[in-house]
């Protein structure tokens, strides 16, 4: 029996955490627990990104996604979690339809993924011989337009600027949308 290839072990560990908590988000009815399970799932996904060699993207996932977007989501949950909204059940018919469609899609995707031979993984000796490289400086240079890792590919400077302006617009828009106003009277609810 060969020795364990530890990156594979950690892949299975992290992916088990990610998938189980994602299913937990789906199945749970308590909105606060859903938010917590989502945090754990995305943090484990960041671990998967670290394993794939994308340490900058993994750290960004932790900082922006888990530490920013999910905090925002949890704020929203706290602000709207009155008694009657904390636990909301879905109709059983919706579950059946959903699981049929989702299950079919999942089967198709996994079958397609494993049917391509090059995607099933490298040989162990080849994988152990891949040298580690740092990705921060090439990513930074790429964002400034100078691709040092693959000089024949275009840089990302224009995209960087567009996304920056986009973020500014979103910031202003969200602040405007969420400004404090007098609440209107309760509408009739069905």
């Amino acid at each position, binding site marked *: 029996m060969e*020795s*364990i*290839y*530890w*990156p594979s072990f950690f892949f299975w560990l992290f992916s088990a955490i990610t998938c189980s908590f994602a299913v937990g988000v789906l199945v749970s009815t*308590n909105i*606060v*627990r859903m938010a*917590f399970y989502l*945090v754990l799932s995305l*943090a484990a996904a960041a671990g998967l990104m670290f394993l794939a*060699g994308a*340490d*900058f993207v993994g*750290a*960004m996932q*932790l*900082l922006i996604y*888990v*530490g*920013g977007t*999910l*905090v925002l989501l*949890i*704020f929203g949950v*706290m602000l709207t*979690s009155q008694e009657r909204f904390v636990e909301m059940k879905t109709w059983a018919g919706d579950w059946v339809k959903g699981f049929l469609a989702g299950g079919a899609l999942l089967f198709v995707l996994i079958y397609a993924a494993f049917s391509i031979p090059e995607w099933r993984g490298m040989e*162990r000796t080849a*994988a*152990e*011989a*891949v*040298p*580690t*490289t*740092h*990705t*921060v*400086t*090439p990513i930074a*240079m790429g964002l400034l337009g*100078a*691709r*040092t*890792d*693959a*000089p*024949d590919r275009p840089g990302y400077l224009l995209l960087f600027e567009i996304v920056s302006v986009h973020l500014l617009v979103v910031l202003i828009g969200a602040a405007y949308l969420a400004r404090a106003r007098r609440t209107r009277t309760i509408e009739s609810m069905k």
Partner: protein
Amino acid sequence: MLSVPAVGPDPLTWGYTDSIGSAGLRKNQQVASFLSEYIWTWLAYTFAGLVHIALIINLVAVGALIFIWLERKISGRIQDRLGPTRVGGKFGWLQTLADGLKLITKEDLMPAGADGFLFKIAPYVSFCASIAAFIAIPFAGGDYPWIPQRLNTGVFFVIAVLGLEVFGVILAGYSSASKWSLFGAMREAAQVVSYEVPLGMCIVVPVLIAGSLDLIVIGDRQAGWFTNWIIFHDPFTFITFWVYFTCATASVNRAPFDLAEAESELVAGFHTEYSGLRWSFFFMAEYGSMFSVSILASILFLGGWNGPIPISDMLGLTPENGAFAAYIGQFLGAMNVIFKGTIGVCVMMWIRWTLPRLRIDQVMTTCLKYCTPIAAVMFLGATFWQLKIPDRNFFGVMPMNPAVFEIGEGLPGPRFPEIPEGKPITDQVAASNGAERKAL
């Protein structure tokens, strides 16, 4: 392929294999490489990991013990009284130990309407986030650094993890089934998340001066006398240090920004309903965060393991003189880092007992109207200074040590990718007729 265009021989013929999964261990994994000659590799790694965890938890827990005692003494002296003087002799050394025993033996309460699972798990989330920041914080640098795991994105990872502590706070506040806890938790979450913005901008300034996110590279850049420290690099970084310290104090919810735990207003904020051991976890998480941001400040701005005077070099405690001398030199460096961190924590305590508490709107105003613009202007100023006066230290007066340019990032090969001189990238592509174009 992805790799940086390497100048040098085939990677497989380098002196040591430097890839994941192989038994060739890197220079900075000393414990594991030492042990792997006697036991299986995976056991060596596990043991090395446990050693690191034990050291870090010792540092944080014993540090919290000492800091709590120190806080009571300092606050007492500032308020013209003595502080603890009974347990353990004249200075009350063992007061915190007695407090810890009391906390462990307290009754384990949980409010009636609390969400059980979230209530129990919240302190551990905070504590884990606080300790996980120490994964990437170095205590000594150079060729054989003392760091649990050397990450290329060091300072980025530390900031990301420090921002995760807010989850424990929110969960605690929500699951306590108490209005005051929820208010305290929301305020604290808003404050921590808002102050991450100027904190990040202040951290980018030393990163751009050192040229790397790697904390060991940033620390090694400040080797030598105190004139090499980044805080003295130019007036912009000098101001940035104070803005960073303010934002760090706000980020760990220390007074004068401690509205979330304000005893006079919210009983105890988000940890009102916590008692005994669960509360002590929150407390240790808070002191651990204070300690880690102080150590981060010392590495980024105050030289880290390089003291005001280069004692290790003057006494010859460098790796060239053998392993024992190197260990003593690194140990002195680690003590230096911990000492500077402790000074930072003491300054935070000093501020706490001197300044009055800010209201929540004042806290937000400070962040958005003062800290963020100042940090942005300092970032611009530091960038222009670095462009115009690139290789000088100490406000542009002293030249930089040429050895600084030899600092590696822990990998063989060049630190910055080699771009062939003369021609822009597009010309090179045209010249090669796209021969290197890789079809997707």
